[in-house]
């Protein structure tokens, strides 16, 4: 489904360029949940941003293909229509655009890009209500501008609610656990787990093992110094929780 080979990426940092990803390889098959763990500054969020198509990164080497398409040549909205979803670490506040208006524009734009019919208003309302109820997102929040005045937990629930509505093929969760209390973590995790299916894959980016108690991954990778330095099963996350990232920082 997603195949990343030898990915090198850098950012402009004032006068100089700084290489963040230094030859990253990752292969995700349909239905799999992969966790990427690693110390701060390892390039975890960069990886999520590059998959979603954010500007500001220069891919100098390597490829990313998604269902045999060259992802790096696609605009962010094309990636979304193809089934990529990024749950933002810091969901953006958009004053003046009602959440409902935004969801309708997003869903119907994706459907149009895929050659599907736009949903009628009743169909759309039903789909939103189903997703919102599952994540405990109140109707009143949907009328408010996107994320404006939402608490940290509400923003994260809103992200997963959007994922439930848009039904992506590959969801990248960028530190979705950060800023969540234990109850919100449980709601968000249940939301994610209920979307797990043999066709849908997840890339869960996290610093802490805690989230992986709720969303149990098939594979865990350690990202340090811009590369995957170790891969394993769920037990690897536990080991990291006990021993920390120190040895990988040295290795990198």
């Amino acid at each position, binding site marked *: 489904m997603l195949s990343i080979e030898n990915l090198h990426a850098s950012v402009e940092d004032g006068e100089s360029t700084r290489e963040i990803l230094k030859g990253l390889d990752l292969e995700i098959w349909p239905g799999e949940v992969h966790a990427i763990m690693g110390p701060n500054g390892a390039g975890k969020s960069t990886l999520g941003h590059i998959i979603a198509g954010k500007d500001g990164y220069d891919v100098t080497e390597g490829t990313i293909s998604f269902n045999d398409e060259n992802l790096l040549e696609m605009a962010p*909205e094309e990636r979304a229509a193809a089934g990529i979803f990024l749950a933002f670490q810091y969901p953006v506040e958009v*004053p003046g655009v009602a959440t409902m208006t935004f969801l309708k524009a997003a869903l119907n734009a994706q459907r149009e890009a895929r050659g599907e019919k736009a949903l009628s208003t009743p169909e759309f309302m039903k789909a939103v209500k189903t997703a919102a109820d599952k994540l405990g997102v109140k109707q009143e929040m949907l009328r408010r501008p996107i994320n404006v005045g939402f608490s940290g937990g509400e923003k994260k629930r809103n992200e997963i609610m959007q994922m439930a509505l848009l039904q992506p093929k590959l969801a990248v969760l960028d530190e979705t656990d950060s800023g969540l209390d234990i109850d919100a973590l449980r709601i968000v995790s249940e939301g994610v787990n209920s979307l797990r299916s043999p066709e849908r894959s997840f890339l869960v980016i996290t610093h802490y093992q805690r989230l992986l108690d709720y969303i149990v991954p098939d594979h865990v990778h350690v990202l340090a110094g811009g590369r995957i330095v170790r891969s394993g099963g769920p037990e690897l996350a536990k080991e990291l929780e006990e021993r920390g990232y120190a040895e990988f920082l040295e290795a990198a």
Partner: protein
Amino acid sequence: MSAAQTEAERTLAALFESRSASFTKAPIDAARADAFRRFAANGLPHRRVEAYKYTDLKARLRRLPEPAGPADNARVAATLAAHPPLQEGATRVLIANGRYHGAIGETIGGIRIASLLGEGAETEGVGTLVAASDDPLTLANVGLFEGGVSIHVDAPSARPLEIVHVANDESLVMGRIAVFVAPGASANVVERVIGGRDAVLNTLAELTIAEGARVDWIRIADGASEASTDLSSLHVRVAERGRLEHLTVSTGLGLARAQAFAHVAGDEADVNFRAATVAIGKRHADNTLVLRHDALNSTSSEVFRSAVGDGGTAIVQGRILVAPGAQKTDARMMSNALFLDETGEVVNKPELEIFADDVQCGHGATSGDLDEEMVFYLRARGVPEVSARRLLAEAFVVEALERVTDEALQDKLADHLRGALDVMGGKTWS
């Protein structure tokens, strides 16, 4: 008038000559002669007059169209029928070619409406708020106005009013309005110009808000053509515990200058100004506010939102003056401008003059492009880039409508602004 009198200024002088022939000894006519004399002493304001630095009327109005005669009833009726009131059940007050069109001394739903000139005219209190003004547009109107209305609102929750200016194409029109809102009463006013391609309007409104009264006033400046000019001056006085919610919506083509001179005269008064401007193409939209706090514990806020593109210009001048003794004043002004492309022009000129020591005042101004983080967020959800930018531009301007309490009216104004954003550089967005 100075030696460098322009053709436009000669037109105005000739107009005064002909109108003053029928002046009486009434105070309103004495005021007219005085006002025009003061206007003529300096002529049309130009860029060396600080308040008109960015809107040089002497240069922009080299010549003026012919003053309009009384309007044709059938044409006015057709124009009105084609543009229904924006608010359901609104009472329409029609000023056609500057003259009040309606029954003399009409009373509708507790609102008393009378002409300012001619038979049955009511002029008591008219001119009080402009007597000390030295604003040239105000003086020109006071000297030359061809008619208008006085409106007395004596009851709370009166029906909405829609004051409509209708002008002949290619004409010069100077209608005048005086509105008196009695203690505890409330008025809900939409003031708009319909039609008038290539017309030059210089309207004047005086608004007196008595103790505990509330007024919601929306001025729509939607320029009909590149050569249309919509100049308007609102002078408002707010008494104790009075409240004003003002909004200017500026769209379309041509030159528009919407001026507000607000005097917060009573303690605990609250005034709020909002402006939503879309200046695309041949549009010069000027919003100028002079606000004077003269009382205790009064509050004011101003939010100007301007979107410019395709060579359009938006000017925002906001001056807040806090008089000595106006303690506990809370005044906040913000002007935000959005560039839709690289060709628009924006001027933000905030000024604070504070002569009291126990006050909270602030102002801020921003101008820039859309926030790329927001654009990416929408695109990452599948919204195509053009639609995302369009959606964000709309949201930016429409936010200035936040204080419009009538939701149906708010929706209509939002649609109007979205429509104004439809065409950029001769192309629709999507």
